């Protein structure tokens, strides 16, 4: 029996991602659904008094900040009209709770409490209020799985806050002081990015809309023989601790082919 279980486990390990993710999704929607239902109830019931106060404080801050939004939007529309730039397509968000698990790989992928019946689809970006978390890789009926920036396969097209320097953000393959971080790769050697500069999604590639914060530059990580600099990027969203996220239904992403002359 032991050897049989080992053989089946090894077989599952050898499954390609295209087969493994749907299998996991099917199991979540059928056999293990009652357990997930229980965990979703547990997450919902967690809203304690202190957490409620924190949310209330956040809401009050947002209300104050939103007073200036109307003016900014009107100004933005006027400037776009003057420069002849078309209006940015609106995007909508779907709130979701993160169902953390107790295995060490939790954080590379996270389980979300909404699925296809909530409007989530594979390829939707996932963001926390602080910044980008990842992208949905499999959407089941009631839950979905997102690959976070800590996953070795994660990549996102990035740009500095001022829009001057483009690069690719990817997870670093090493840890420093027990902390995972990102790298901003592909920055031309002639370009310099100062420490502390905010890096956000560029909107290229058709997956992530432009303007989701990714992280702040924390210095040069390495230089590739005079043609590229790789910067260390401190991510803003922490997939290991985040409790609530927003699934972004992107409408304004730009395909790479559209951005070329």
């Amino acid at each position, binding site marked *: 029996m032991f050897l049989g279980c080992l053989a089946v486990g090894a077989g599952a*390990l050898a499954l390609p991602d295209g087969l493994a993710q749907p299998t996991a999704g099917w199991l979540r929607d059928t056999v293990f659904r009652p357990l997930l239902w229980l965990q979703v109830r547990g997450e919902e019931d967690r809203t304690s008094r202190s957490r409620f106060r924190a949310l209330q404080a956040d809401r009050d801050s947002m209300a104050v900040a939103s007073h200036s939004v109307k003016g900014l939007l009107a100004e933005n529309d006027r400037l776009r009209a003057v420069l002849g730039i078309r209006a940015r397509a609106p995007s909508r968000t779907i709130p979701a709770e993160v169902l953390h698990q107790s295995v*060490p*790989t939790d954080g590379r992928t996270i389980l979300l409490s909404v699925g296809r019946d909530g409007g989530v689809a594979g390829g939707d970006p996932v963001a926390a209020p602080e910044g980008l978390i990842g992208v949905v890789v499999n959407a089941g009926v009631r839950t979905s799985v997102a690959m976070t920036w800590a996953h070795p396969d994660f990549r996102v097209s990035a740009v500095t806050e001022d829009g001057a320097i483009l690069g690719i953000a990817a997870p670093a393959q090493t840890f420093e002081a027990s902390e995972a971080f990102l790298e901003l790769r592909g920055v031309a050697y002639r370009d310099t990015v100062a420490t502390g500069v905010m890096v956000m999604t560029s909107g290229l590639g058709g997956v992530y809309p432009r303007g989701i914060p990714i992280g702040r530059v924390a210095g040069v990580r390495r230089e590739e023989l005079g043609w590229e600099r790789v910067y260390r990027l401190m991510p803003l969203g922490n997939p290991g601790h985040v409790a609530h996220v927003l699934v972004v239904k992107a409408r304004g992403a730009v395909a790479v082919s559209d951005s070329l002359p």
Partner: protein
Amino acid sequence: MIATRRGTGRIYLAFALLLALHFYVRPRIWDGRAAPDFLALGLILFALRTRPGVAAIVGFLVGLLADTLTPARFGANALAHTVLAYTAAWGRAVFFPDNLLVNAGLFAVGIWVRNVLVMLLSATPVAQLGPELLVWAPLQALSTAVAGVVVVFVLRDWFAIRLEA
């Protein structure tokens, strides 16, 4: 010592109770990376009181559940939990699970080994193994051991054990 039918029923009941603790109580109280893993705790307690073959199958199912909920590398948890349960079932012949400290040690070592196996089978880069091996796995092992001691103490009649310490 293979459990009697009544004893087996209680062990299954205890396992169900730990499942509820894992999926309902843990998210409400503490679901950080160092939080106790009641699922693995239930598996070890179950494996210590059953045959190795049965333990391997239950371990595989628990691992499959973990893989389904965290599919960073599908199959890694199934393999790791199978090995954990099978080893724990054989370990009964070597250890004496009637001592609280021995129980705590088994839980801690089991969780640490499980985490290391999952990280290795998930193709984690060697540089990233350090923090897991030295920080997170020991912390989770410690918290699970403490939770395990409490569970064993409270449910000692169900597990039919006479605690020595």
